[in-house]
């Protein structure tokens, strides 16, 4: 397998507070990687730094071999990244408008074609394409957020806490939906505190205080003492 995303000793922070301390990470083509960690471990900061929303203060980020560290988010997204934030959607815009913006760089015709594919994949969205995204339920909003990220046609999708704010039954629904995306050639990097997402992953990283504490395959993480202490000891958070 060849590396799509290479994260090399990345440092980042806010003002005087440093959050990321030399993070290393690799995501291969078509791979699903889980980024585990408790609240405040630095998962969101890492994803925001990778997509260019947060300045990278040290180290380098490469996408398909190209150094993108100095590029803004729009330039990185044009090169094949997409980011699904915790919010994920524009609540005041309609579902169709959200999807159009997800494919911001694409032509109108291409965006229409991709939107039809999304409506096939998420029939619940198709029925409400003219409704405001803010009128959707929490689970449907995550579906729209995912569809909006997929609209970009990106090879590398970052997802920030797809389970946040959802009841357990909807978390299961999100996981089932992601199973449908995995294997389509897209690489996923999913930041979660919910260990249930480990079943989707080929590999994973455990973040702690802005550093990569543990990394390994799914099986290795499942048997890791650090992961056990962080998760199974205190019970999975949702």
């Amino acid at each position, binding site marked *: 397998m060849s590396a799509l995303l290479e994260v090399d000793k990345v440092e980042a922070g806010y003002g005087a507070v440093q959050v990321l301390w030399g993070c290393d990470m690799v995501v291969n083509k078509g791979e699903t990687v889980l980024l585990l960690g408790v609240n405040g471990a630095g998962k969101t900061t890492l994803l925001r730094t990778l997509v260019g929303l947060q300045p990278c203060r040290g180290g380098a980020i490469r996408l398909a071999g190209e150094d993108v560290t100095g590029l803004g988010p*729009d330039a990185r997204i044009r090169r094949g990244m997409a980011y699904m*934030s915790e919010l994920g959607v524009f609540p*005041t815009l309609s579902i169709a408008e959200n999807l*159009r*913006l997800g494919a911001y760089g694409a032509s109108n015709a291409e*965006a229409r074609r991709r939107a039809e594919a999304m409506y096939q994949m998420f029939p619940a969205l198709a029925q409400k394409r003219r409704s405001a995204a803010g009128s959707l339920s929490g689970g449907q909003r995550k579906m729209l957020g995912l569809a909006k990220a997929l609209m970009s046609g990106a090879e590398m999708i970052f997802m920030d806490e797809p389970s946040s704010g959802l009841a357990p039954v909807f978390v299961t629904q999100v996981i089932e939906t992601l199973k449908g995306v995995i294997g389509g050639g897209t690489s996923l990097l999913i930041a979660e505190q919910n260990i249930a997402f480990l079943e989707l992953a080929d590999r994973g990283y455990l973040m702690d205080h802005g550093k990569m504490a543990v990394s390994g395959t799914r099986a290795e993480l499942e048997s890791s003492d650090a992961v056990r202490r962080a998760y199974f000891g205190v019970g999975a958070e949702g």
Partner: protein
Amino acid sequence: MQALLEYAIVGGVLYGIFFGLVAVGLNLIFGVMRIINLAHGEFVILGGFGAYWLSTSLGLNPLWGLPLAALGAVVIGFPLYYAVVPGLQRSRDPEMLSFILFFGLAQIIDAIISLGFGPDQRSLPDEALGGGTISVLGQAFPDSWWVAAGVAILAIMGLWLYLTRTRLGFATRAIMANRDEAFATGIAVDRVSAIAFVIGLALAGAAGVFVPYLQGSVAPGIGNNLTTTSFAILIIGSLGNPVGTLFGGLVFGVGSMLMQTFYASWSDLVPYVLLVVIVLLRPQGLFGKAVRNA
């Protein structure tokens, strides 16, 4: 009595539609950039003096001021945006700094207009926009008022179509909704914001073309009042929705005309009283709900 009331209402509707156009550019710029363009009224006046210059120096119809306003907005707006915004974003307190910056800009524009045209009030010939009157309910108003209202409606509808039918318009509304999410979606936020800034200035300048008609004259120094009135209208109509601004203009226009007709000495208070009442009773604006669904 009834004739007076009809006069106030017909006049108020025309006046209000025009003021919807005066205010809509401020609404757009505030929505996208989250700054109050304190020089808004000065850009309106620039449009007025542009029309005056075309009319008196070149002998052209003042309506040529509309394309001139659009051209001027492009020439001034893009460099101004890129000169000002990166500095604002780097500062610790962008909102306060933007207040000071645009206040200073307003003074500069006022001074330049005074240097170029002198401090006098300038008016334009009524004949240029028709010269006759059109009556509704037996109340005659000059053609220029009807032309102004017609242009205002076309411009506001044009803006509404831009915002609701085009990709750049979606992106503009996305930035209004959540700037960070707009960046995260891959929208070229600076380019889209710069375009919105230019459109906002163009609309202000276009409104200015009609100021000599609707206000009787245009003079340096009246920009302040126009900015405050625009702000009141924008709050009445709620942010982010050009149709809401049109509605806010109507409330202000009819309110002003009723006061001018029946309690003339109190009429200058109308925008301020409306502003305070709306902020206290309905801070999301009278049109607030429509914005969320827009």
